[in-house]
Every structure is written in C-alpha cells, then in structure tokens.
C-alpha cells in the first residue's frame, strides 16, 4: 500500500493556543505574512445543546487532485507519490494563480521571496524521523499526521467533520 501523507486537525479538541502557527513559523523560518497553518476563533455556536467556542484551523490538506497543481503555469507544484503536494520554490514565478485556485484559501505568499508557499508537511523533519513541527508542539494533541486512511479511521470514532474527506477527495 502506498503511503499517502496528510495532516488533519480534530477541531473538537483544538484549544486555540496558536502553538502550531509559531512552531511552523520557526521550523520554516517564515517572515510575517505567510501562515502555512492558521488558527482563529469561530463565532460562539450551539453545538450539542450548549454554547461552544471552537477554533478554525486552516492549512493545506494535500488534496488527492490538487487544483493548485493544475493551474500552475510553470509546473512548480507536484503531487508526490507519498501524497505530499510540494512547491518548487526555484520554479515558482509568483503569479498567484494557485492562490486563487485553492478551494480552502490556504495557499500563502512570501512577500520577501515573492513566491507561493504552503505546508510541506515538514519533509525535512520526516527525513530525520520526526513528526511535523505543529504536531509535536500541540498541547491538546489534536493535530493528526500520517496516512490519510489511518487518520480517517482514527477520527471516524471522534465524529470527524465530513467536509474534510470531501475536500481531500476533490
């Protein structure tokens, strides 16, 4: 079976602490501007009969059929065999077509390098046998990393929001 990496946040458990955001910034040495993973509060909503404050976490889901890849005029975006959608920073011309194409609005732009950027699942860390920086830092352990089928199976028991699956499948 081919390994198909992705990252999924169980927002039921997210406490909104922003640790993942800063872990990501540090790992990739990002300037102010691009936010590969982002956490912000939802409006209070009634969930299961009580008022709750949940957080929305946005990041690249490494779609099976990535639209960003389809629209890239210079083929800087690739879907790797292990599932990771990667951007070749040398090839990117900063046209921002992928930013428009992304259905989740998670494609970022580095104003200093003038290139498109997004979550790369910390490929450098994976090579060193580590989990992605956001996963390691998260105090509520709500960020799941690994093969998509495994995560979905694990999270099905946790009433994972179904839209995740839909989006990933494109």
């Amino acid at each position, binding site marked *: 079976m081919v390994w198909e990496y992705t990252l999924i946040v169980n927002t039921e458990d997210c406490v*909104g602490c922003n640790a993942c955001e*800063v872990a990501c910034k540090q790992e990739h040495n990002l300037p102010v501007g691009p936010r590969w993973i982002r956490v912000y509060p939802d409006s209070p909503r009634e969930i299961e009969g009580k008022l*709750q404050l949940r957080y929305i976490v946005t990041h690249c889901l490494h779609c099976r059929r990535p639209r960003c890849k389809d629209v890239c005029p210079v083929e800087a975006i690739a879907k790797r065999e292990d599932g990771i959608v990667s951007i070749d920073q040398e090839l990117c011309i900063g046209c921002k077509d992928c930013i428009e194409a992304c259905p989740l609005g998670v494609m970022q732009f580095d104003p200093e390098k003038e290139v498109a950027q997004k979550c790369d699942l910390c490929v450098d860390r994976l090579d060193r046998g580590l989990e992605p920086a956001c996963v390691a*830092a998260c105090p509520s352990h709500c960020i799941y990393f690994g093969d998509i089928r495994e995560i979905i199976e694990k999270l099905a028991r946790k009433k994972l929001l179904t839209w995740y699956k839909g989006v990933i499948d494109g």
Partner: protein
Amino acid sequence: MTESGEEQVIKSNCRGCHGGCGVLVYVKDGLITRIEGDPDFPTNHGTMCSRGLAFKQLVYHPDRVLYPLKRAGKKGEGRWQRTSWDDALDTIAARYKRIKEEYGAEAIVLGYGTGRNYENFLYRFANLLGTPNVLTAGHICYGPRIATTGITCGRFPVSDYEGKPSCVMVWGNNMVWTNPDEYTGENLCRALSEGAKLIVVDPRLTYLAGRADIWLQLRPGTDAALALGMANVIVNQELYDKEFVQKYVYGWDEFVGRVNHYPLDRVEEITWVPAEKIEEAARLYAQTKPACIQWGVAIEQTINCTDNIRILLALMATTGNLDAPGGNVLMALPPIQHFGKLAMRRYLPLEQRQKQLGGNAYKAARRIGVTTPKMVWDAILTGKPYPVKAVQLHGSNPVITRANASEVYKALSQVDFLVVADFFLTPTAELADIVLPAATWLEMEDIGDYWKSQSYVYPRKKLVQIGDCRSDHEIFMELGKRLGQKQYWGDHVEEDLDWVLEPSGFTWKQFRQLDYLKAETAYRKYEKKGFSTPTGKVELYSTTMEKWGYDPLPSYREIPESPVSKPEMIREYPYILITGARLPVFFHSEHRMIPWLREIHPDPIVEIHPQVAEKHGIKEGDWVFIESPRGRVKQRAKLTTGIDPRVVAAQHGWWFPEVRTPDHGWKESNINILTDNDPEGYDMAMGSTNLRVLLCKLYPAEEKS
C-alpha cells in the same frame, strides 16, 4: 557556550513565562537556531506554547537593551548614554549607601514582575540591604494562594494531573493558554481526552467553558458566593467525606453555620447562576472521585481574595480530595534550599521588618513579604509614612500592569532614582535613571523551581552571550558585593548554585547534566502528621485569621464599584468591566514586539455582546473607547455572544513598542488607566487590588492614532 561547526541539541528549560517546560535548544555556530519541546520532559511531554516557540525572536530582537544605559536627558526623554557594568553598579551602590544613611534602607524598594526564579536572590539582596519593601505582583497573583493555603492547610495544594483526576473544576483559569505555575495545559488536555468531567467557572465563554459538562457563567466578582453556595449543597446534602471532616477539619460546626447563610436562592440572586446549575456542579464535583480544582488568579484580584481561596480549599478538603491522588496535593518540597534560607530572611532586622509598607494593614501579605504597590506610590508622592527615594525593578512594567496606571506613571516619574533591569526599553524602563540589560534564560546558568510548589527542579544553561547582558542573579550578587554583602554571595553564580543545590547532594556541574530532580510525591501525609497549622487540622475556621483580627470564617463581600454597591453609577457607567483575561500569545505586557506573536494578535480586543454593540453603533473590529471614572482607553471591538450583555471584557498589558517615542503609546489601550487602586476595594488580609470588576461605559472612537 557551544563550539562552532555542526548543530548541537541541548536540553534546557524554558522561562518564557514562569517557566517549567523542558526544551531542546538547537545551536549552530554559536547561534540559537530553534527551540522545541523536550518529548522526555514530564510536565510538557514535548509540547510548547507559542511564546516559548518564538523565543528566538526575543533573544535576537534588534530592540534589545544590550549594554547598561544611563539617562542622558530629562527623565522619560528617551536620551541614553551607554556605560560599563562597573560604572552602572558603582553608581547604584553609591546612591543606595547615601539613601540608606540619610533615610534608612526602607527608602529603597526592590521589585519584580511575574518573577523568573530570581526572586530568591532579589529577596536576599533586599534583606541584606535592610529593606522590607519588595514590590511584586504577589498581592494579586499566586502570593495570596501561597499565604492563605499556608495558614489554612500548611501548604499550597497543586492539581495532581499525574494522579489522574476524574473531574476537574477550572475556576478563574485558562491553563490551556497560560501556565498556571504548576502543570501545563497539556496535562489538562490529556485528562479531558481520557474522559475527565469538566466544570468551568468563568464569566466569559472560553474553549474550556464551551467544552465543560457544566459551565457556571457567574456575575464577575461573585466567586465567593458561588463557592459558598456549592459548599451549602455539599454540607446539606451530606456529600462530604465524614471521616475526613471528623478527624482532620477544625471548626466544622462554625463553618456549617456560615455556609447556611448562603442558601441557593440567595446565591442565585448574587451570582446570576441558576440554583439548579450550582447544585448540579456541586454534586458532580463532590461525587466524582478523584476531583481537583484548577484555580487561577481571577479569584485573587478582588476584595474577596483570601476568602475565595479559603472556600475553594474547603471544597477540596470536605470532599476528601485534599492530598488525595488526582485531587489537590501538598507536593513535597524539591531537594534544594528552602526559600527562607535562600532569601536569608533572618538577616532582615525585626525593626526593619516592621517598617514594611502596608505590613500592619495586610497581615497575610506581610507573612509572605509582599508590599502593596499603592503604599509605595503614596510614599513616593507624599513622603508618608516615610519617603521612598529609590526603586529598582527587575522584569517589571508596572506602568502597564498595575492598577491606576496614571498614578503609577506619576510616582515612577517622580521617584529620585529608578533602576530597571529588563530586555527592552518598556514604558517603565523609559522612566529610569539607569537601565540594566537583563539576560534571557538562554544566556544564564540557572535553576528553575516552579515556586517550589510542585517538587520539580531543573537546570537552565548558558548557551549564548548577547551584548553585555547579565542574569538578574548576577546583578544582585555584584551589587550586593558593593554594599558589604560579600560573605553572603558566592564568588560567581555557579558557586551560589552549588549552595542552592546542597540538600540534593549534587553540585551545579553535576546537576547541569540532569534533566530534572523531583521529590517523590506522597499522598495523605496528614494521616501520619496532620496539617502544618496551629491546630494540626485544615482550618475552615482560621485561628490565624482570628489572631490577626479578621473574620475567621469565609464570607462574600460585594465589590465596591459594582451595580449592587453603586447603583447610582449605573446611569453613566452601565457595564461591568472585567480585565485581565489571558491571551495565548502574550504574557502580561510582554511579547508585543515579537513579530511571530504580534502577527497573530495585532490589536487589543474588547469583547462586547452584539446587543450592546448595536445599541452604541459599534461594529465588529471598530475602535471603541472604554471609560471609567479614572480615564479612558481604546481597544477594538469583538462582538461575541459568549459574554453576558451586562459585562464587557477588555485585555490588559497593551503598549506599542512600534511607537518609537519613549512613551510607546502607554496611555492608548492600557486598561489599567481604568482600574482603581483605592484601598476601599482591597482584600483585608492580602491588600489585593481589585482588577477584575469595575464599571464602565462604551462608545465608538475614530481610528486609533
């Protein structure tokens, strides 16, 4: 210090807040490249908060103070002259000698903010100098719990996450965002994912409040009434641990008598919380074993400070959760010198101790050597009861973080001699005569200890040298040596640390190689030796409070500036303002200059109910004025149904490092312009300032200048 060449990974311990998270620091060619959680460390299990993860940006920040600075213009003018450590310390020492001769050592006030494990050394310096005046946040933060639990059950009870609580009652705390000084939020998250029940007491909807099995959304400042109501349920429904009460509680009958003054219908009227919800919460807490109470500073920053603590402690004790696994445990002292010895308190002569500002008025505060800030401001401004001529602050920004900021600013502008040790030129440091460049935890050899409440001690290591920055410990040591304290300090910091560690049997060099030391946790120690109180029992009727002339039983008092106490104010100031809710990316007034953190939270935010916003023509994101009888500031509106329409919640700690004038916009959004420090609102035993409840009005503002 590390060698150049390849990347090294060194274990240390973060101190971005009070500290306590084990970290891995990556260093390459003498530069810190990355800071991550240490997966092997028992309190954070590899996780980190945003502040710790961004700490590299603080260490190498271009605005850091790198050299000692002397004032070169008028006070607060922002003109500085670089000087040497010798010159700075000689100048300070000469000045202190003169002040001591002319006015007495009590005219010199030492101070720190949240405290970063150098309190031992600050107190040592103060005690040896002969001043009883140490200005901290101890009257409103953690200090009250140390002092009050000390007289009630002998020691601070810590929520025992390692003992696996089945129910957690979070009271005025948001530990998933901030470190409550013991276990980090990760431990609560773990307990919840393992199915622990959750009760949350908070006037605002937080993540935890929303997740809770029961959320008690109380009227701000009525915690004591709510807790007494819960005690009423526990007593009258006989949910208490009868054996424990019989054997280990002092003053049960009197306590029951007091609790019966708080029937649930009365408590509902006071707190706005429906009686049946209070009953449900009391039953859940009392009947789920083990259960712990995770309390926070919200209970301390009010007129009911010591009583809030006493009643919550009574809930722990009567339900049999005190010192029980998974309950609230009196952790063993870590194997290092105890505080009194480190601080050399016995060297402060009795006649000097008795001069402590506010000491006679606030006896619980005197017990832990904490001075109420207003007494210092008054002494500076009026010379009464005696003049204060010098203030030396370490890691403290009272212009932003103490009540009635306008008075604080005035006092610190007028004091003859102000020394500030910090990382940056804060609005407080800008008023100084001398600024000392403080080292961060990555630039020092240091021992961290969680206020010695949680049994752990751990080493921090010097990995880099930034400018001429020095650790606060070293500053006190070097200054002390210039003031006749030579024999009480080591020749160098490491020698001092050897002495700190003496009871452990390790030298600093040996300890430095360890991840941590922990005294073993023992439960129900009272079965063998009782509790360390005058009666040997948990004193629900406090013989110490009685001796001090206070009510020996806890009660609820109404906050002086509330809709109930001052109904005549409501017409002009219709809303209850709460301040000080914690943020995930800043620690009090810190971190506003850190790019990765400020990007996440660029502006101060005031939470307003949508109905209220509509009434005043305020839209989401608008700048609004919040005004109290003390003044007004601007923050940006966030509309939320997670707050009662009668309540408004503003953030604290705001100043603007990007404003390059020396005031750094301290008046713009600083909520302490609005808070009051009138002693009328203080807790009688602690002198705690009321920061949590005041009255305000709201109206739209134009764009923030």
